[in-house]
């Protein structure tokens, strides 16, 4: 990237300073709600930073997942925390000595790292160029998608497992998702009805465009997830749907598709996830479609935060 000059350079300085300041505020604020809101805005700023770093894919993912869904999770968690639980003033109860030591240690580490990062001299070039050279062979035009789904598709396979695993973990706590006590809020409900098709459209677009431009399964999936969250907020009774076996099928669709793809490519080409040149684009699209579905479903289910129970008031 070009050395910083003029306005853009100034912008970068402000942006990075703002990141540090927001993070510090979020972590230091005595009020938990305020902390979370600050954290969400920190996430949005991160998205900006990604854009500046020429990583629009990450920018999208950060905005949708890092800021959006993580924020929603944090807020709903805060809402479910019993009122009487002490909020814990920002760490002032920890012994002064401990804090001083911690400060010295972390600052020492940070400054060392800063020095290392600043003087880092690559001894060998990364495979960045290889990505560009092999892009045709990968079957997609967007290098990031190519890496995610093809070159390092195996990472993504395991990553889908991580996502599903998080849900398994949440459910293994054996908590039932509590029923929405407040009935559907009319305003929110109307908004949801309005936004739902739009969001689905956006998701579909991101999924499709991801092949050659910024976007892809994760961004699309998170938009779907956001839609689900919206519906839950609007008090739609999705639990019945979410508790069904179908739901489970949707949840595993992504990782299952990956495993299936892995096996078939193994059988056809003799290598794990080695896509036949001609069909690569199509196969990857199928994978991404399945992934999008289960990412959306999983994120929504994570937001629900408990094992969905079939409606008992029916």
């Amino acid at each position, binding site marked *: *990237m070009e050395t910083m000059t003029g306005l853009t350079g100034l912008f970068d300085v402000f942006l990075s300073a703002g990141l540090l300041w927001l993070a510090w505020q979020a972590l230091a604020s005595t009020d938990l709600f305020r902390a979370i809101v600050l954290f969400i805005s920190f996430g949005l700023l991160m998205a900006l930073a990604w854009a500046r770093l020429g990583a629009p894919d990450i920018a999208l993912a950060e905005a949708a997942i890092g800021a959006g869904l993580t924020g929603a999770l944090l807020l709903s968690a805060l809402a479910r925390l019993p009122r009487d*639980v*002490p909020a814990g003033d920002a760490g002032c109860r920890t012994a002064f000595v401990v804090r001083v030591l911690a*400060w010295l240690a972390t600052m020492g580490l940070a400054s060392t790292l800063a020095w290392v*990062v600043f003087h880092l001299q690559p001894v060998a070039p990364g495979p960045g160029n290889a990505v560009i050279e092999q892009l045709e062979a990968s079957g997609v035009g967007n290098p990031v998608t190519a890496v995610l789904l093809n070159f390092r598709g195996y990472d993504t396979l395991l990553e889908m497992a991580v996502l599903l695993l998080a849900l398994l973990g949440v459910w293994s706590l054996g908590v039932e998702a509590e029923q929405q006590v407040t009935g559907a809020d009319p305003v929110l409900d109307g908004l949801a009805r309005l936004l739902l098709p739009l969001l689905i459209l956006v998701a579909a677009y991101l999924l499709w465009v991801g092949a050659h431009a910024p976007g892809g399964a994760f961004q699309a999936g998170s938009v779907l997830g956001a839609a689900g969250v919206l519906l839950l907020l609007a008090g739609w009774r999705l639990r019945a749907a979410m508790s069904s076996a179908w739901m489970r099928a949707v949840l595993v669709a992504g990782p299952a598709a990956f495993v299936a793809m892995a096996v078939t490519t193994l059988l056809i080409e003799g290598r794990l996830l080695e896509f036949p040149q001609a069909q690569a684009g199509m196969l990857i699209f199928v994978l991404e479609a399945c992934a999008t579905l289960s990412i959306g479903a999983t994120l929504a289910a994570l937001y629900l935060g408990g094992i969905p129970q079939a409606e008992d008031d029916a």
Partner: protein
Amino acid sequence: MTAADLYALAGVGLVGLGLYALIVHAHLLRKILAINVTGSGIFLVLVGLSGTGPDAIPQAMVITGIVVAVSATALALALMLRLTALSGQAELPQDPDDAH
């Protein structure tokens, strides 16, 4: 220095902040926030260090990282809520042994 370096350094700063907060804060929600901040910092380093021109591989790694982070956060929050419901406080017992 380039803007990328700047962001990488900012990332290092975030790592420092996050680690410090993780150590000193008792409240689990804050600890979770701290972990997330640390993660973001590391992601910044990972991408920011690719000096000349954007490199798709670290970017893909960061996307993977973001998804892992949100999964971990969701699990952590659920655990925190369950623990709070049982023990009545959103903090870890001082002595791990007599959590009984």
